[in-house]
């Protein structure tokens, strides 16, 4: 058959390898290539021109909108990464100290939200943060405020909060894995040598878990910067992000080549962030 050890099935194995190499080529490589090629086409007056130029890329750098929005989006996603890591670290630490059934249960509880509908989570968070939402209602009821707050909805704060809440699980996992990898003997040695728990944490555990923290942060950053649904849904008119600009090129603006070029730039930013993360991880 198709398995090693069978000499008669040459034909089958040839068919299999054609399939295994051909399908990924057609449905993954070819789309990605056409995508990159598209970024060199250009559109003028609703008409697409199929000659290769750098026009889209020069427009990105010369137009006054795009670079600032990209920069702002990067800062936003960096803040999301920082918040997600700060919130995720204690959970990862608790996970690492637990054992047996309880550890497994807690890990499951961290993972389950990942399988839940993204769009539903955004919707749910929006209905809490909104002017008429649960949070405002609660604060009014507790008489902490007397006017519904509007700082949490339809602006960048809302995008920041929503993305953080959505992406915490992605921060917990890498940190948890790096904590698990710390050799027990190092911690025991530190305690034997008279260090308190707190000292052991600051001098041994925290530095050794930093690679995981960096991986977690770059993970969250990349996921946040690629998201266009969240800003579209909770961002309102002022919460404009780079992902939304890309999406609008394929919708209302109908300039596919420019959208493709912007996505290529976004991909480059992501690759740089991942590479920086990897580099840091190797060095430590």
């Amino acid at each position: 058959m198709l398995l090693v050890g069978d000499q008669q099935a040459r034909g089958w194995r040839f068919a299999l390898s054609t399939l295994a190499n051909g399908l990924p080529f057609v449905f993954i490589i070819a789309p990605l290539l056409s995508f990159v090629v598209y970024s060199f086409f250009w559109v003028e007056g609703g008409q697409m021109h199929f000659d290769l130029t750098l026009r889209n890329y020069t427009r990105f750098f010369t137009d006054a909108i795009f670079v600032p929005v990209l920069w702002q989006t990067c800062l936003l996603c960096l803040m999301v990464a920082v918040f997600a890591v700060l919130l995720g670290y204690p959970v990862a630490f608790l996970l690492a100290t637990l054992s047996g059934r309880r550890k497994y249960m807690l890990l499951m509880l961290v993972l389950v939200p990942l399988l839940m509908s993204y769009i539903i989570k955004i919707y749910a968070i929006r209905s809490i943060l909104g002017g008429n939402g649960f949070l405002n209602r609660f604060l009014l009821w507790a008489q902490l405020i007397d006017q519904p707050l509007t700082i949490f909805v339809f602006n960048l704060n809302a995008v920041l909060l929503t993305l953080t809440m959505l992406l915490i699980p992605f921060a917990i996992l890498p940190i948890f894995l790096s904590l698990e990898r710390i050799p027990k003997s190092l911690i025991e040695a530190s305690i034997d040598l008279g260090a308190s728990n707190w000292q052991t944490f600051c001098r041994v555990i925290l530095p050794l878990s930093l690679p995981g923290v960096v991986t977690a942060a770059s993970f969250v950053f990349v996921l946040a910067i690629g998201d266009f649904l969240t800003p579209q849904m909770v961002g309102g008119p002022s919460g404009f992000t780079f992902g939304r600009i890309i999406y609008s090129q394929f919708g209302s603006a109908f300039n596919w080549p420019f959208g493709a070029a912007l996505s290529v730039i976004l991909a480059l930013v992501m690759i740089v962030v991942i590479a920086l993360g990897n580099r840091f991880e190797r060095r430590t």
Partner: protein
Amino acid sequence: MMKLSRFAYLALSALTAIVFILLYGPLLVPIASSFFEVAHGNVQWDMPSLSAYAALVHNEGIITAFLNTLIVGFCATFLSVVLGILFAIHYRNGTSPGRELMQFVIFLPFLMPPIMIGLALLIFFRETDISRSLLTVIIGHTVFVLALAYRTIVVRLKSLSASFIEASYDLGASSWQTFFYVVLPSLKSALSGSAVLCFALSFDETMITILVTGTDNTLPIRLWAMMRLGFTPDINALVALILALTTAMCILAVRYLLPTESADNAA
């Protein structure tokens, strides 16, 4: 890990509790409000009712969207599992740089941000004159979830000792018999686990779908359209139902994947 002091343990637990409130709390609000009357955009907490669910039954758009989601989910899952088996067997058949490259390419759509793979497919379909329909959505989902099915299956296939297969040949079994009586049964839990996971992912996939779909809506796209229009009570009911379904699928996936994980740990 070190033994925590009582104080440290409590502090960590409290922080963890906050994170879990952030993770699960928002989901409770639409579920709770789905059981109450909504008037003027406000939930009337003193008027419990099932009218939201009743409205859902009469919303034909939602039922079609639900059926579309099921069709896409089943097709994408079936394709990914079958292709996952084929690709895993091919990968196991030998070692060459081509195989490593193939493996990397399969993982790409899972690693790349969905907006990019969605846009790439959108442009590809336009260039090849494939009009956008449920078929393109199925292709998009398959490309996305295949990595998961492939990964689960290839790991299990690698752990299957070659001597089992050789023994089967020695005992006179044909290739197909070996495949059906030796290889496939040992992949069983990996197949069912990855099938459930693939279906769950496909069921909720939004970012790729929104780009490659034509006029046919899947449930998340339908939800997206409804949410943009505003707040209607049947959204809450739908959200509650979808969450119930997803939770059921998660529990199923865990039950299938659980024994394999403890077996891996024991080995």
